């Protein structure tokens, strides 16, 4: 570190400093909202989504587990968010006969596309876990989930080496809109030991409000990733041609594809 110097104040410098201060203040006060609407700014801010994903993949191993809780931590009711009662006829028909004729279709970049009934899924290796559900809005709710381990289900249909994402196509037109809910996760998250196709909630059948007959649990992600009312699973190498092309219903509406934070 240099030694202190004795120097004289400079009136010109003083004016410059005052001027710069005023300029900075006025720039800060105007235009943050118009910046938010600017495509380039959105792209720049969006780049942090990939940065966050890379950093979080770096510090968390493929196997690092979400915390599991005890029975006494379970919330009195698991809060249902988004769609809570899909109103289209097809879904209503399945709900009316207890999803007896419902089949989960798995296709796309797999060697053996297949259909699974709820009983087929229940016969597969399962896992029960008491975990915390974190909504992007900020709240959390703890519940006990039971389901088929997604990695085991995927092994039955044998994904090809080209498969990079698992896309979940859902039954619900969220908020009565024209499009159906969908979501996607990558193969690392899909093969995580806590990633389930859940059919049970708190030792009971999964209620309609929480996504019956089948919903995704991806415990290291925010709630909007965990698609409810899953009808079809498609393995793809890119989700660019699906709906808005951003990999999910909320992603098409500006939310991050990486929902680990």
């Amino acid at each position: 570190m240099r030694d202190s110097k004795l120097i004289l104040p400079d009136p010109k410098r003083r004016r410059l400093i005052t001027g710069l201060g005023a300029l900075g203040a006025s720039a800060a006060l105007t235009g943050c909202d118009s910046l938010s609407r600017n495509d380039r700014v959105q792209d720049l801010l969006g780049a942090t989504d990939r940065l966050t994903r890379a950093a979080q993949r770096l510090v968390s191993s493929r196997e690092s587990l979400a915390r599991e809780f005890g029975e006494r931590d379970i919330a009195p009711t698991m809060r249902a968010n988004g769609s809570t009662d899909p109103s289209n006829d097809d879904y209503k028909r399945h709900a009316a006969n207890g999803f007896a004729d419902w089949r989960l279709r798995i296709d796309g970049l797999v060697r053996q596309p297949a259909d699974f009934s709820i009983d087929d899924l229940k016969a597969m290796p399962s896992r029960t876990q008491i975990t915390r559900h974190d909504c992007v809005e900020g709240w959390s709710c703890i519940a006990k989930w039971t389901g088929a381990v997604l990695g085991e289900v995927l092994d039955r249909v044998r994904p090809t080496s080209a498969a990079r994402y698992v896309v979940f196509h859902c039954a619900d037109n969220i908020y009565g809109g024209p499009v159906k809910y969908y979501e996607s996760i990558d193969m690392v998250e899909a093969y995580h030991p806590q990633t389930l196709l859940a059919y049970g909630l708190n030792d009971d059948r999964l209620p309609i409000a929480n996504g019956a007959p089948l919903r995704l649990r991806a415990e290291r992600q925010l709630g909007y990733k965990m698609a409810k009312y899953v009808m079809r699973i498609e393995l793809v190498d890119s989700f660019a041609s699906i709906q808005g092309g951003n990999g999910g219903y909320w992603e098409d509406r500006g939310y991050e594809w990486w929902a680990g934070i």
Partner: protein
Amino acid sequence: MNKHNDNPYANPPERARVIKRHGLFTRVWHWVNLVCLVILLMSGLQIFNAHPSLYWGNDSSFDAPALQITAMRGDDGAPMGVVRIGGYRINTTGVLGLSRDDGELDARAFPAWATLPGPQWLAMGRYWHFAAAWVFAPLLLAYLVYTLISPARRRLVWPTAAQWRGLPATIAHHARLKFDHSADYNGLQKLTYLLVLFGLLPLMVLTGLTMSPTMNAAWPWLLDVFGGRQSARTLHFIFAFLLVAFFVIHLGLVLISGVFNNLRSMITGRYRLGDDAPADKDNRHA
């Protein structure tokens, strides 16, 4: 500001003693940090507005939040904004819970002028928040390391033995709004900067990371340190407002203890000593 002469050249050099107080890194960090913290605060309030309740523990006890900012109908049927803390209810109509945006009454926790972006827009608030955090957190880490390894910086924020002993007197001195203009910070100043630099700012980052489900899997100890995700969210909020309190006091003191001299020391690095300040070398920091 009281000791400045109109014509600086009228004084002999020994009466117009100016030292280099802050290095380039400190000055750049300070202003970049200010921009980051303003963006983080305003986008943070936008994110808070998506679920304007705070809880303690792992999850949300929806019917008994520790704090809630909401809108409701008053006894006269008119809408009002309220803040609920435990069993207490405070009418905050116009600012919290219910405020005007472009003349329209809007039921929202923090008003449009305090959030980034102004309208309710959670996705964009998150983008701003994380982008600013990606600048803020690495710079903070670098600056803390720099403060620890630079002897001059370390001396500038770590109180001397005499300063620790003299803290009560320094507080009394400040309470009378009297300020020295010496090269060294006083004990109270140092303690404040220490608590903010090595306490509040890192705690903001850590409580923020504790809200991330992937970070919970990567570093589960975060949940143990802060008592669960919802506790961490509440602490994040409390620490943010402690930082706002620091900012208000900091700004006030900068304004009344010689605003030009203080601002210059954080822009060009140069700080003019008071006429009565000791000039010995030990008392100066480059």
